[in-house]
């Protein structure tokens, strides 16, 4: 595992983020930052290392799926039930993080695509989900020519 020592700004290395939107944000943030030495810290490089990103995605996904559940039940049943039902594919499929991740995103996208066509308030929840997915895809495209920038930022931290 790659690690950076004694550098606070290394926390914003794009390689510590997974989703394209967050990686893009990290590039902007780190490019605008001066190197910030801080003795006595160890910063490992793993694409799931960012707390901000993982909490944000987890809450966003759960909140959206809970909204989707309210299409068929009252909200006070939907929230606790969604927290349980959302986990079921992991226990049923159990094919590793990558496959499970695809299953989660695909099933929520299909649900969003269906709910976006309805006339209830849920279409707004569905559209925001689809819009964020589209934005992420756009960010992924923008990142394609930016590999050199990411390498430069890594080199700045001694990687």
């Amino acid at each position, binding site marked *: 595992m790659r690690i950076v020592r004694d550098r606070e700004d290394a926390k914003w290395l794009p390689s510590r983020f997974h989703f394209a939107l967050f990686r893009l944000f990290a590039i902007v943030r780190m490019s605008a930052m001066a190197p910030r030495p801080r003795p006595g810290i160890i910063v490992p490089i793993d694409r799931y290392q960012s707390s901000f990103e993982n909490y944000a995605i*987890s809450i966003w*996904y759960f909140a959206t799926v809970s909204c989707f559940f309210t299409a068929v039940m009252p909200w006070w049943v939907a929230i606790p039930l969604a927290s349980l039902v959302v986990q079921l594919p992991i226990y049923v499929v159990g*094919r590793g993080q990558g496959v499970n991740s695809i299953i989660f995103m695909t099933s929520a996208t299909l649900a969003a695509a269906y709910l976006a066509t309805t006339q209830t308030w849920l279409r707004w929840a569905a559209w925001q989900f689809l819009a964020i997915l589209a934005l992420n895809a756009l960010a992924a495209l923008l990142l394609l020519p930016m590999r050199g920038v990411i390498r430069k930022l890594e080199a700045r931290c001694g990687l």
Partner: protein
Amino acid sequence: MKWWRRFLVHGVFWRQFLHWAVVNVPIWLEPMIIAWWSMFFLLWGPGRRGVMRNLAAIKPRSSPIANFFRVYRVFWNYAWTITDNVRHREQGILPDWEFEGSEHFEELQSRDGGSIILTAHMGSYDLGAQLFAEFSTRKIVMVRAPETDPDTRRYEEAHLDDRVRIGFNTASSDLALDLLGAIQAGEVIAIQGDRVTPGIAAVETALFGKRTLVPAGPFALAMAARAPIYPLFVIRLGRRRYKLLANAPITVTRTSRDRDADIRRGVEQWSRALETAIAAAWFQWFAFEPYFEEAA
């Protein structure tokens, strides 16, 4: 052995489930899954009540309702630390680390002879030891209480990290001589000093105004090996973020014929360091039984 015992809270099922979950749960969904399972484990009555009683002693003016929510915070932190520990073991992923009292930590690493790390069931003890093994040239021996459930014990022994040597402090073992030899060979011994395993020699002390017992072994070992004890705590700061807090060393030297009085002095210093660490990070002191009952 009855089949359903594996599903009890100390049963092997939950260890296997955790190992399975670490490689199967999408990481971006982990905060939600951990929040759910932390709530599920609130159903574990003895553990919940144990933490609540400890919190009532740590925070004497707190209300039971506030402490109930604090128990959730303890369980939440516990779930994250055991997950981080398994993730490091299975996938080699390290969390971010910060050091406080790094001068003591440097001293521990650079001194000529062996030494003792005294720590508590706080943050991730295992992860701290693995970090030490990864970044230090010194060998580390972890002393820990064996699991109460035989299946769980076998499972954990089969999944031990080979970078760290483990010694189990059972009453019948001749571990003390091994540890003395290890210190004399310049190795570092890491022991948890906040809980006493039945059958192990203990010393009475006070923690948050209540009498409790701490293991006598580390202090006797420090005296016999003339090695310093470094109180060291691994504190979880957030998701995949830990702090290693190293305190000034405690020296336990024979000053008189009264060996017990010399040991008690060391125990007193350790108790104050432990009390300070727990007061600052009560939400990650993973003592699921009332700490003061052992001395009662």
